[in-house]
Every structure is written in C-alpha cells, then in structure tokens.
C-alpha cells in the first residue's frame, strides 16, 4: 500500500504544480506531514480548489462532510482519496 500512497502523493504534487499560489520550490520535499497552510503558505481558500482538482485527477467524488472535516496536511488528503476510492469500488 506504500506504493499506492506514494503514487497518490505524486499525483497530488502534479495538481499542486497547477496552483499558481503554490511556490514550486516548496514541492521538492513534500512528505505526508507537509501542511498546506503552514508549510506552503497557501491561502485557506485554495484548499477547496485543490480538493476539486483532486476529484478530477483521481476520478473520485468526496462527501461534503469529509471535505468539511478535512485537515490541512498531505496525509489528510491522501487518506481522503483512498477512502473515496474504496467507497467507489464498493
């Protein structure tokens, strides 16, 4: 499963490269612990844009409640994608 998580992180970084308010230099050392708000100085309004782009990228749809409770780290987003994928399969 480690590989799947890494593949999702790689895809997430591809999404982040399309977000102009993210400094590309900060995408060099992204880990699961990286925090969008504090480590990437991202405006909180961008989080929802990233969620919408991630849905497109991974062909999943998140539940509104999950988005409402979404944390601001890479791990939080990876977990959410896996959860949505699992739901999709079921």
């Amino acid at each position: 499963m480690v590989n799947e998580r890494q593949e999702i992180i790689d895809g997430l970084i591809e999404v982040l490269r399309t977000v102009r308010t993210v400094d590309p230099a900060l995408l060099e050392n992204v880990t699961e612990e990286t925090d969008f708000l504090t480590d990437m100085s991202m405006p909180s309004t961008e989080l929802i844009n990233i969620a919408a782009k991630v849905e497109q990228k991974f062909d999943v749809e998140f539940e509104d409640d999950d988005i409402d409770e979404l944390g601001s780290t890479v791990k939080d987003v990876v977990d959410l994608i896996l959860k949505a994928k699992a739901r999709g399969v079921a």
Partner: protein
Amino acid sequence: MPIQGRKVAIVGMGGAFPDCADLAVFDKKIFTGQSLIREWPKAVEFQKQIRSTVSGYIDDNDLGLEPIYYVEGYDWPETFVDTLGRIPDINLSTADLGSVWAMLGSLESIRMAGWTKTETQSERTGVVIASGGAGNVIMRHAWHAFFEFGKKSRLAGSHTVDRTMSYREAANVSCLIKNKGVCESITSACATGLGNIGYAYRLIKFGLQDRAVAGGVEGTSIETFIGFDAMQVLSKGFSPAESSRPFDTSRNGFVCSFGAGIVALEEYEMAKARGATILAVIDEYFNNSDGDGNMFYPSYDGQRRLWQGLMAGAEIKPDVVKVHGTATPVGDIIELISVVDTLGEDGYHISAPKSQFGHMLGAAGSVELITALLMLKNQQVPPCLNSDTLNHEQEKFQQKDGWAGSQKPAEAYRHLIPQETVTKEINQVVCLNYGFGGTNSAMAISKDN
C-alpha cells in the same frame, strides 16, 4: 459639498487597449488615424448564431498575460500568469481578466504619478473602479458545471465570488496596492468609466480623499457581446476598420469592444508641491438622468440639462468635445445637435474616438478620457473615421412636433467633425458619455496653466 478653491489634477494614466501593447502604442495609433477594430475569431467561431463579428478586442499575449485553463473540457481560465512579473500570483488568483487589466492600469498610473509607497497606501488614497457588465465569463462556466453537468458546487472553485462580484476590479486593485482609503465601484452602464472618475474627483474635491485611482473596465466576454448582438444594435456588413461609423449616413450600430482605462487623481496643490507632471486639471464633473422613463432612447432634453449643469460649476469653452458617438442610428445626431445648440456652430471640434476602437462599454468613458488627455498632450484631434457622408436631410425626430433643437441637417456641421488628424491649440476638452437607463455624464478637463 465642494471645498472652494480645492482643485483636482490628473497625474497618471494607464490601461488595456485593443490591438496595442501599451499606452504609447495606443497614443501613436490613435493620432495616426488607425483603426483598432478587427474580425474577432471568438465571435466568428459561432458562425450563424451571431450577427456581428467585429470587435476592438485584446490579445492576452500583447499584454504579457497567459491564461491557465482549469481542466480539460472547461474552456475558462482558472487564473492568468503575468509573464512580465508585474502582479503577484496571489493577486492574479482572485482576478478575472478585467480585474487583471485594472491592476495593470493602476500600476501604470501610480508609476506615472510618482506616488511613494506611503502615499499609495495612505488612508487618504481611494480606489474607485468598475465595469459595465457582470463577471459573465466566470459565472457561465461555474453555473454550467452545477446546473448542466450536475457537479458539486466546489467544482466552480473557491474564487467564483471574488472574480465575479460587482466591485471585483476595485477590490482587486485595492488588495494589490494596499490603499487604506475608499474602495468602491460606481456603475452606470456605458457611463461607468467616466462616472467612476467623476465620483473619485468629487471625493477629492469634497476633501474626503487626497488621491484616487479611478476608471472603468470591460473584460473580454463573448457572453457580454451576444447580449448586445441579440438586441441587433451592433454594426454589421462592413470591413472591420469601416465598421464603426459615427455620424455617417450608413451607420447601423456600434462595435462592441473591450478594454480598461485607469487614471491617478490627486489634489492639485499636493501634486504641484511634489513636482508632479500634471496631465490635466478637472474643471468640473456633472451627471444627471433623462427622466423620461425610456431605458434606451437618448434624450435631447437630458443632454441639454447635462450641459447646463456642467456650465453652472465652471467656465466651459472647449476646444474639443469628445462625444459618446456610438454610431447607432439615432444617438449620434441627437448628441451632435445638443452640442451645437449649447456651444454654437463654430470654434471647436467634435471627436468620436469610438470610430477608431469601438464601444468599450464600462471602459468607454475612461479610455476616451485618456484619449482626451492625449489630445491635450499632443495638441491634436484624432480623426472621426468613416464619417464619410453626413445626412443632408433632416432626421425624422427633427420633423416631429415638439422638437426643440436645431432644424439643420447633420451635414451643416461637417466642419466640426474632422476626417483627418487636426493639429491646433487645445486648452480644454469636454467628455460626454451616456448609458442605458437614461444616465448622462460630462467632465471638462484643461491643460494646467
């Protein structure tokens, strides 16, 4: 109320102009009599769905802008990249195209004005900018994803509000330059551009602000274009350069164009004290309404009262009258006669710059004021392109009972409307703009003596 003796100077200008990389190119093209109107590929795409396909439109590349598209299948820019590094990405992320132009014009105006950071960011510096239309491009795609595709609302992105709200241009400029004074938009359809500058003038004249960045914008939008196309009021049947024909007998509508015009205003004595270049002094601004209950039809009475109001507040003896002159069948000649009946039949020229760049809607008044500032600088009147033949017979409205204006046909005033660039002494220009709803605006500007 106005403070006696307090004057307002224009100390900077900038914007976004069709088929021009910058203000210097705009200046050159206007005064060498060139047309900025071209066949618009975006309109041509729609083939028989659309009547008119000419526009004074702006290429993103010309302004150093690159659109970044959202995802495949969504033909709308999520944001723009400023390839010349003038606007930070965080500011671009909250801006629609018109707001980007407003920011570029504001930066250019402030640079020309020579304001320090402290002056720009003062509580005494305001921002008053608006556009005529809504954020149509962004809204259409946001709504389409929701209503037609049944997508979650978040697919519209988190910037639908800041990129479409009525005062988006003012908000984006204020967040960019960080002024601490007024930040507002005044909208009045096609009088918006002049109206915002007029309102900013009053803020300074009344002592509420010392400086203001002000103007009007109309961002590129096929959605806006088709609204006017539907009304059958757009020019049709001419080559692009011949499409905008103010006063000409064969005129059949205006050319829908896009752009932005921004000026920097400053209390006169402060500007003089710091050695600023004074582009012009604003003598007076006046606005009113027709009051006849007609949304569209121009009013001779409303325009005569407009002149009276303007003249009540200042000495008005213009060398040039920059008219609204859209090239619609009725509007041009009513306006021509209201000018002539006010000023007489000689001693000034009439300039209709829409003949060169079309009708920029919410930006019209401000871009045309910039054209008037260039007239003062160059001491030249640009030509009224395509005003080839003026009617030698009376207009129908002149034959109606109750018509109170001149009985002469338009041809009697041929000498007022130059077909080539005229060089002459120009000390004062009066600018006129009107909008749907019967709103009328007039501003007089003079060279600094």
